[in-house]
């Protein structure tokens, strides 16, 4: 946000704020311990708003649930912004001192009246008005989101629409006021921190624009760093399709099952001249590889660090001896480098980290012994006496503001790409369930009684209209593929909305249905909005036959 890719607040602030908005996030199931902090906040008097097409387990705790239609977030956010402006609730002092582009924003949201937003989103105008007024009037407010915002073809615009609301009200850069993307994986934040982004060096230093940073890395590494961004995953698949991409090293990811339009992903991976997969399992992706490099499990068989959603860098440690033949990721990379003509020796995780600390100013103070003693440290931590930073962008409240002002980014609503019509009348959205995780590589090995295998959740109204009984097998058809799956009634869904997870791809490969059209700015595919139809299969055999065999 405003140059630093991380959530602005600490979990403790969620406990001490006055208003919490979960927008496109079912944290109760997907970030359960973060939700403990939300529950503490509610206990301390905070009000909770949940914006989600589904009435989720999180929404059950909300003071107000805004059940918008899938993919209409920008229309809703712009209407909230317009209402705040119309009602005279803008934090004018903050907007004047700390932001740019307000006038353009005001003009852009002007057409988004409450009535028009109600028509687009399906949320009653009065509920939108209440959210707008409550958010603007709250002394402190935390706005949190997850993949319900980012797994859309206009993901980055969705995020801008939310940031605009925080700028309008001054709900950023203070204790208890912030903007928080909740990270879905234990080190997706750390990956970004370490420069696993097409255009960043470690510490979010720009590879194209920051010549000083490049020079530091060049001096440390004794090589030239081309000032040119790389490709993100969706672009890589495009490059494969165009025949411009011939070899791939995949570390710890299972795109054969996690990519949208899975059939296309498999076809393109199969077409590579050379595919190397480094993983702890022989995943479906690894089965396609020319070479598989068995790796150790990073969280319990190796040393290192990960970064959490509150920017807390924490140590992972080796607790288990890895199985015979599996090698540390770091060791594998060093050995690959050696084959490519560079002898890095046998670097330890700590040695690599200390090098990173020298090159990334925001990590400089994070010595291993400090990370250990302090239960992790939140970046930025510029020196070895620095306690870490609980919230970002406090500088926006300095007078005058130090550094660049925060820009409003006006954005326009666009409907999801996979349009509904008579042939595909139901909107399928995908997500996670509490007890399972991603493509199930990790979670099909334990046996929580909650796990029922894959099912399609339908509204009771659609079940009745289609003559589908609980547990009956149905065929789910999209413009790209079809799967067969048992159906279950979910009163949290309104008519025309369906839900599936992608945790059991060997049983039901949900991503055969999804559309691989991605946001040009983030590279994230529109997993959240697929047009489907649901056909009952006459010879229903019940869900038991489809249960995952363990």
């Amino acid at each position, binding site marked *: 946000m405003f140059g630093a890719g991380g959530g602005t607040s600490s*979990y403790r602030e969620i406990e*001490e704020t*006055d208003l919490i908005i979960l927008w496109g996030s079912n944290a109760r199931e*997907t*970030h*359960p*311990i973060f939700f*403990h902090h939300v*529950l503490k906040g509610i206990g*301390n*008097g*905070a009000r909770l708003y949940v914006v989600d097409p589904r009435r989720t387990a999180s929404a059950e*705790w909300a003071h107000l649930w805004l059940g918008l239609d899938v993919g209409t977030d920008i229309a809703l956010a712009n209407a909230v912004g317009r209402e705040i402006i119309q009602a005279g609730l803008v934090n004018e002092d903050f907007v004047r001192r700390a932001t740019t582009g307000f006038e353009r924003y005001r003009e852009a949201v002007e057409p988004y009246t409450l009535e028009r937003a109600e028509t687009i989103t399906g949320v009653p105008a009065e509920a939108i008005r209440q959210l707008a007024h409550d958010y603007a009037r709250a002394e402190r407010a935390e706005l949190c989101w997850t993949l319900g915002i980012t797994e859309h073809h206009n993901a980055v615009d969705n995020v801008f629409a939310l940031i605009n609301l925080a700028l309008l009200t001054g709900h950023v850069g203070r*204790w*208890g006021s912030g903007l928080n993307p*909740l*990270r*879905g*994986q*234990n080190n*997706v*934040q750390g990956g970004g921190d370490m420069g696993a982004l097409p255009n960043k060096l470690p510490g979010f230093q720009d590879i194209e624009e920051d010549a000083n940073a490049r020079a530091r890395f060049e001096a440390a590494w004794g090589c030239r760093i081309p000032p040119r961004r790389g490709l993100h995953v969706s672009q890589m698949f495009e490059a494969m399709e165009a025949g411009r991409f011939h070899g791939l090293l995949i570390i710890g990811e299972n795109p054969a099952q996690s990519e949208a339009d899975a059939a296309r992903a498999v076809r393109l991976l199969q077409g590579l001249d050379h595919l190397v997969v480094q993983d*702890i*399992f022989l995943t479906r992706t690894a089965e396609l590889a020319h070479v598989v490099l068995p790796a150790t*499990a*990073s*969280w*319990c068989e190796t040393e290192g660090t*990960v*970064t*959490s*959603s*509150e920017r*807390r860098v*924490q*140590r*992972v*440690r*080796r*607790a*288990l*001896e890895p*199985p*015979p033949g*599996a090698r540390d990721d770091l060791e594998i990379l060093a050995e690959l480098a050696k084959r490519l003509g560079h002898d890095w020796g046998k670097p330890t995780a700590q040695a690599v980290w200390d090098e990173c600390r020298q090159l990334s100013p925001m990590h400089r103070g994070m010595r291993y012994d400090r990370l250990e003693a302090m*239960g*992790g440290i939140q970046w930025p931590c510029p020196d070895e006496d620095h306690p870490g930073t609980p919230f970002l962008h406090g500088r926006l409240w300095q007078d005058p503001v130090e550094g660049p002002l925060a820009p409003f980014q006006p954005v326009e609503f666009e409907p999801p790409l996979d349009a509904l019509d008579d042939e595909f009348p139901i909107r399928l959205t995908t997500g996670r369930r*509490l*007890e399972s*995780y991603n493509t199930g*590589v*990790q*979670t*099909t*090995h*334990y*046996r*929580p*009684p*909650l796990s029922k295998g894959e099912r399609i959740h339908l509204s009771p109204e659609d079940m009745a209209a289609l003559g589908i009984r609980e547990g009956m097998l149905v065929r789910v058809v999209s413009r790209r593929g079809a799967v067969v799956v048992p159906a279950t009634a979910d009163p949290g869904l309104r008519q025309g909305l369906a839900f599936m997870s992608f945790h059991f791809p060997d049983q039901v490969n949900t991503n055969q249905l999804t559309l691989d059209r991605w946001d040009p700015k983030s590279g994230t595919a529109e997993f959240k909005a697929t047009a489907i139809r649901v056909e009952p299969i006459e010879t229903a055999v019940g869900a038991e036959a489809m249960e995952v065999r363990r």
Partner: protein
Amino acid sequence: MNRGVSVAARPVTVTVDGQAVEVPEGSTVREACAKAGVEIPTLCFLENLTPVNVCRVCVVELEGSRALVPSCSRKVEGGMVIHTDTPRVRTSRKMVLELLASSVDLSAAGPEVAEWLAAYGAEPERYGRRAPARTARPDLGEAATVAQPPKVDNALYVRDYSRCILCYKCVEACGEDAQFTFAIAVAGRGFDAHISTEFDVPLPDSACVYCGNCVGVCPTGALMFKSEFDLRQAGAWDPARQTVTPTICPYCGVGCTLELHVQDNRIVKVTSPLDHTVSHGHLCVKGRFGFEFVQDRDPGG
């Protein structure tokens, strides 16, 4: 409206066993004792839970107070004179431990419980032989017990209520102190009081979401990881051979610290530190139980 402002608490001076100590206003008597270097036994108290004052093993004598007071919850007041080792205190703790030990199987409780039984001279056997099955009306010469077969109704954890002292910790962790799932409560009264799911249904039919936060706070082994239960059944559970390594959960991005308890290169249970600002000792089902995938990779495993 909650302002979230923490004002520095004023200091309060109290006397513990003749020694003056200064603690911040709002501290408990137990905390003042700890500051004075006096450790107080507790069963139902835990740092991450609200005190419920049921076990009474932490009682101390307070000058001017007619009754003994539970030190885990009683707040200090200026000038308090606290005695932790008087005959009244010792007798009370001895009785509490005897009554618990005569009716409940404490063999899987932490080693400190056996130390307290010895230190306070508890003689649970003076109430008679332990009745072999749960009953409020034992035969002559028998002590009433809560003995009953363990409930093994899922693959993740076991409930052995013959070990349950009704400390309420599991109920609090499942409820308002952490999880807000409310899958369990205390049902029945008097000797029939017991921890129960709704209508005593098996766990898979209850509201339980298998976070295991009840297991994490249980002081007596009444709630136990299935992995620990199986090892104990096989006579192979051996804490002396175990290591505990803190690391970070491999699942979502919240970043909960997991303490991996490892025996013979297998994870046998997972806990989380009570004093960490991220998890406060609590985990979800994946963090607590979702570790099997790293143990299924041995050749042929």
